[in-house]
């Protein structure tokens, strides 16, 4: 009966953590303004202690899930003793209360990381940043303790749990929420840095250099989290789609757009001392949108396929947190933002201008997504009509900005700082020509079926070849022989490699999106065993068998199908329809033959009385490129993160290369 005590211990640790967080806000902040170093230094211990206590709470909840302690309401509602261990673990965050606990765990982990890796940070900036972190944490501790206590006990413990939603029993989804949360919460660090800088009234190149790695971490995880979610929707939901412009997807996409903008503007602030004030604003907005995302998901305010917590009280609480933090930070920005002035000027044709264009396009795209996402709510409140805003809206209103962004990218990323010349862009001519050539060849091969598809692929080539051309230019091909060129290219800073990788990844994703949108083929029909038919120009499907199988915690109707290409057997697929007796749910399991150039995707519907089933078969060209590109982008982010200039702790200890500003140092 150790479990009995452990849950109470977890609850108690969480209460203590909230008290530590309260102390972490007040005492160090007083220390900063009264210049009392001892009070400031308290922040380190407080941040570490807070992380330790939250980790205990999280461990206690995890233990309850692993041990299937059904006397805890949350475990009884969301777990089942027959569930595999991985899903017992993912069950910890596969529900509202547990996911909020994960949220504060990550937030306090980030604070601890600031303590561990922030050795080089000026003490006042670091202290205030950690205070702001603690303020955010306290709000969420209050939220958890007052509205969503994960440790609540049941008066009478049931013998068996109600099980986790079988759709969520999936490796892709087991790691999708934690990845997204690291992304969302990482933006809290950028936010805290921005608020601290505003309070201190100083932003310099060093500040931008300190903020960027945190934004990068968060961006990498957001990218991975969104890609995982999209991949999960693709193979698990059985609709064959990979992006639905669902409010909850938009909730993660908006912070991603802001984080991307922030990454780029922080570069300008760091390298050129311009856009500092704008970077602060972006840091505030990026986190505001991740809070907004949390609000959307947690309140279920918008009709959404994902909402699994519909409790208005919680929604109002998160809305209050959002208003206090975003509103407060924006007010602070309005008050102090004008104190921050640019150090430099730049020509109309320069990398600065290119990055500003990048920022404006990303922010406008995010605003359009925002309006589209909230329009149903506005319409219901103001016009009293229920409506939904579907994918056509977003495709028409968002895509043009993202396409424009991709078109500008190779130009901007190769331009020098301060001032650029058109002569310096000459090496992009062959890139442009190869893109046009590629588009033309595709259009020709495709018999001009899809002009948009050809344009999309041309855009991808423009980006990918642009990356190569940029690298070749940096290597200085033709200057001092091939060895010197290779030496130069391999000694490029890692952040340059990161940038190239990330941009290349974007090209891969664009190619995937274009191909799947333009050339996907779909076949739906009622079929029975023994049937063989063409599902596209090149592929045929032979329906071999239909039978019942018994899974670990479900029963399935499984079809056996052979995919034939020019009458050769290429793949055997087993699409299923599963029934989970514990939750009484039915799920569709798509069978996917994954390939580098195409996926073959088959789903079956319910069996008819006459033994026939609906069979839906798709050929999805370049489907995997969408997620492959996202993985390459994340790798780019990671590479950039390993750049020497971000090694905060080591720089601080061994060689103080960067000179923090006197104002921040004091």
């Amino acid at each position, binding site marked *: 009966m150790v479990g009995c005590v452990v849950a109470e211990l977890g609850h108690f640790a969480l209460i203590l953590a909230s008290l530590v967080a309260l102390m972490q806000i007040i005492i160090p902040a007083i220390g900063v303004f009264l210049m009392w170093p001892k009070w400031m230094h308290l922040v380190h211990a407080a941040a570490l202690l807070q992380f330790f206590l939250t980790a205990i709470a999280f461990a206690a909840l995890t233990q309850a899930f692993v041990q299937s302690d059904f006397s805890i309401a949350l475990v009884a509602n969301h777990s089942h003793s027959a569930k595999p261990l991985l899903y017992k673990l993912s069950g910890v965050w596969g529900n509202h209360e547990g996911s909020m606990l994960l949220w504060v765990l990550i937030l306090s982990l980030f604070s601890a990381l600031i303590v561990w890796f922030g050795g080089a940070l000026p003490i006042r900036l670091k202290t205030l940043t950690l205070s702001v972190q603690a303020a955010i944490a306290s709000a969420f501790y209050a939220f958890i303790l007052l509205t969503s206590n994960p440790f609540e006990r049941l008066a009478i413990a049931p013998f068996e749990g109600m099980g986790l939603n079988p759709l969520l029993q999936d490796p892709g989804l087991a790691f999708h929420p934690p990845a997204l949360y690291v992304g969302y919460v990482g933006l809290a660090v950028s936010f805290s840095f921005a608020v601290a800088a505003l309070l201190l009234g100083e932003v310099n190149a060093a500040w931008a250099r300190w903020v960027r790695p945190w934004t990068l971490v968060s961006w990498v995880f957001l990218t991975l989290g969104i890609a995982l979610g999209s991949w999960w929707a693709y193979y698990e939901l059985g609709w064959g789609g990979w992006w639905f412009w669902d409010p909850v997807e938009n909730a993660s996409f908006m912070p991603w757009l802001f984080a991307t903008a922030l990454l780029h503007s922080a570069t300008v602030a760091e390298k050129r001392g311009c856009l500092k004030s704008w970077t602060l604003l972006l840091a505030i907005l990026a986190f505001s949108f991740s809070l907004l995302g949390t609000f959307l998901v947690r309140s279920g305010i918008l009709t959404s396929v994902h909402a699994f917590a519909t409790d208005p009280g919680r929604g109002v609480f998160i809305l209050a947190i959002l208003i206090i933090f975003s509103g407060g930070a924006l007010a602070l920005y309005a008050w102090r933002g004008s104190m921050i002035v640019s150090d430099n000027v730049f020509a109309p044709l320069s990398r600065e201008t290119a990055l500003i264009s990048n920022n404006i396009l990303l922010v*406008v795209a995010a605003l*359009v997504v925002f309006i589209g996402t909230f329009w149903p709510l506005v319409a219901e409140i103001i016009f009293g009509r*229920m409506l939904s805003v579907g994918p056509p809206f977003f495709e028409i209103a968002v895509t043009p900005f993202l396409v424009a962004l991709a078109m500008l990218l190779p130009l901007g990323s190769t331009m020098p700082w301060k001032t650029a010349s058109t002569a310096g862009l000459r090496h992009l001519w062959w890139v442009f020509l190869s893109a046009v050539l590629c588009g033309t060849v595709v259009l020709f091969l495709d018999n001009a079926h899809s002009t948009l598809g050809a344009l999309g692929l041309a855009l991808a080539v423009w980006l990918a070849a642009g990356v190569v051309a940029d690298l070749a230019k940096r290597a200085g091909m033709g200057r001092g022989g091939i060895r010197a060129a290779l030496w130069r290219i391999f000694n490029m800073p890692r952040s340059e490699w990161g940038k190239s990788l990330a941009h290349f990844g974007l090209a891969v994703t664009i190619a995937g999106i274009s191909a799947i949108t333009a050339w996907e083929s779909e076949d*739906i029909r009622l079929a029975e065993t023994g049937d063989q038919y063409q599902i596209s120009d090149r592929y045929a499907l032979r329906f071999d068998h239909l039978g019942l199988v018994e899974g670990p915690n479900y029963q399935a109707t499984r079809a056996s199908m052979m995919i034939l290409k020019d009458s050769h057997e290429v793949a055997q697929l087993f699409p299923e329809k599963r029934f989970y007796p514990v939750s009484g*749910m039915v799920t569709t399991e798509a069978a996917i033959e994954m390939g580098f150039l195409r996926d073959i995707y088959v789903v079956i519907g319910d069996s008819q009385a006459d033994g026939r089933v609906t069979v839906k078969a798709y050929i999805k060209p370049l489907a995997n490129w969408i997620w492959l590109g996202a993985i390459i982008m994340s790798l780019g982010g990671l590479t950039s993160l390993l750049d020497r200039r971000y090694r905060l702790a080591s720089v601080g200890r061994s060689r103080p290369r960067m000179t923090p500003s006197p104002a921040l140092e004091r």
Partner: protein
Amino acid sequence: MLSQIQKKRRIHLVVASGLLLVIAALLMGYGFRDGIAYFRLPSDVVNETPPPEELFRLGGLVAEGSVIEDQDNTIFEITDSDHAVVVVFRGILPDLFAEGQGVIALGRLADGVFSATEVLAKHDETYMPKEVAKALKEKGLFRAPVQ
């Protein structure tokens, strides 16, 4: 001197952003024409028939005993207890689709028959589609869905 150039840049910036926002507004206006789908109950459809080209969402309960498989199509009725509309759908019905359950279909109404391109039922088995529950409640027709 410095601030002169900065001022000029700021003006450029404001003009460029303004231009983009105008473009965004135009695109959104255009996007709303195709992207918005109103929600209607069968009674709304009967009282005021929408034009055949309008894409909208029809919500209600799947009428008991109304589901028929005909060749490759599924035919069923969506009802709000007052009125019912016949829906024709070709494709795989969602896992949670069942007679007596809440459902939303996206499609167009022509000659009294609703041709659905998409049929949605929630992933979440514990509640009805929000709009359906709300609209039925407003009409006083709401019954707790059969779990």
